């Protein structure tokens, strides 16, 4: 088995679990904090045989919004952490000021640690992308507050930009631009 696939599987398990757990936790929080009446059913109609439902549209909307917001928040925090860490470690090699700042902030381990790879940032971004798409689709279907969909889209754009920029900087060190040495 290739090292890459093994690394991907190893890295993907935690964000996959966290995505489900944060959605469930968001629902539990919504139900307990807002004191909503939640029901469960086992209709064997589609792919899934377990459904969560509420008796009115208002409660469904609130619970869905709350759980989606909670999931996006948790996923965004982790994804931003790994993507920023990757971006900083990519730029540190080219910019001594970055290293000085990292030393001042006692974050030098971000650059020296072996676990600051592209794969981790990439996997988290993929899961954040999936979460965001679900929330954006839900917002477009007016099943979630629009502001949550917009916020997740903006965070997604920033994450993807940082990831791509970090990857560009990394690849420039392997394949330098032709005009650098001209």
């Amino acid at each position: 088995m290739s090292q890459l696939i093994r690394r991907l599987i190893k890295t993907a398990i935690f964000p996959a679990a966290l995505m489900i757990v944060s959605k469930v936790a968001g629902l539990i929080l919504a139900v307990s904090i807002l004191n909503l009446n939640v029901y469960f059913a086992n209709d064997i109609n589609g792919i899934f045989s377990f459904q969560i439902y509420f008796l009115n549209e208002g409660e469904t909307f609130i619970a869905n919004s709350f759980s989606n917001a909670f999931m996006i928040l948790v996923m965004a925090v982790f994804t931003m952490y790994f993507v920023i860490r990757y971006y900083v470690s990519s730029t540190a090699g080219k910019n001594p000021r970055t290293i000085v700042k990292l030393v001042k902030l006692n974050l030098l381990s971000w650059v020296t640690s072996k676990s600051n790879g592209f794969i981790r940032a990439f996997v988290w971004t993929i899961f954040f992308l999936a979460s965001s798409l679900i929330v954006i689709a839900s917002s477009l279907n007016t099943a979630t507050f629009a502001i949550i969909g917009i916020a997740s889209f903006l965070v997604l754009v920033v994450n993807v930009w940082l990831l791509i920029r970090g990857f560009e900087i990394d690849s420039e060190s392997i394949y330098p631009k032709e005009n650098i040495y001209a």
Partner: protein
Amino acid sequence: MGINEKRNVKKVSKTVAPFFEPFAVVILLIIFSIPIAAVINLSPETRNQDTNVLGVTSENKQAPIIDDSTDITSEQARLYEGIKLTAIGGTHRYITSEKIQEMDTQTYKYSAMLLKHDSSRYSKPILDIENLSDTPRTLQFSGTTETTGNTKLIVRVNNIDYVLQESDGTIFTHNILLEANQMTTAFLAFQSDTDVQYNESVTIAIIEQIAE
């Protein structure tokens, strides 16, 4: 393990590893797709509460149903085949939305909503039952909650507990004998060993029979 054995193991693993690679890719795809499917499935929806736990309706939709549903708080008495069922009504902290439906001349459906509650036993009188005939009659009780988790469902008649559903989901049917001209009260009781954080509906079928 000797050096030669280690080499052999390495050689074998190098030969076998490529065969497992497609499975690893499938595992990777599953890891990526499961949370997406789960989150979509966990998105709540709006629905009426008349959903059967097995996804199969418990009502025969082909048969004509006389929908004679009445709010139990009304004083209206029911008189069929010698048995008189009178809804008691009233309010209860955890038993709400009580309703009685006549399914046919000898079958009735009692339904109610059990609100989320702490672990304990709760009960409420639901029906006054009177055998107006001069012959003994039986009433067959069977019932269940919508979600068969944790809640023990009991009908109490003549100070005897008749368990309709055990907390593990096992359901029972009971025939309760009513002597000629006997009058009694049926209580609905439910019991949970742990706190229940959600509401659940309960349905009890009551069938009148002539005692053998």
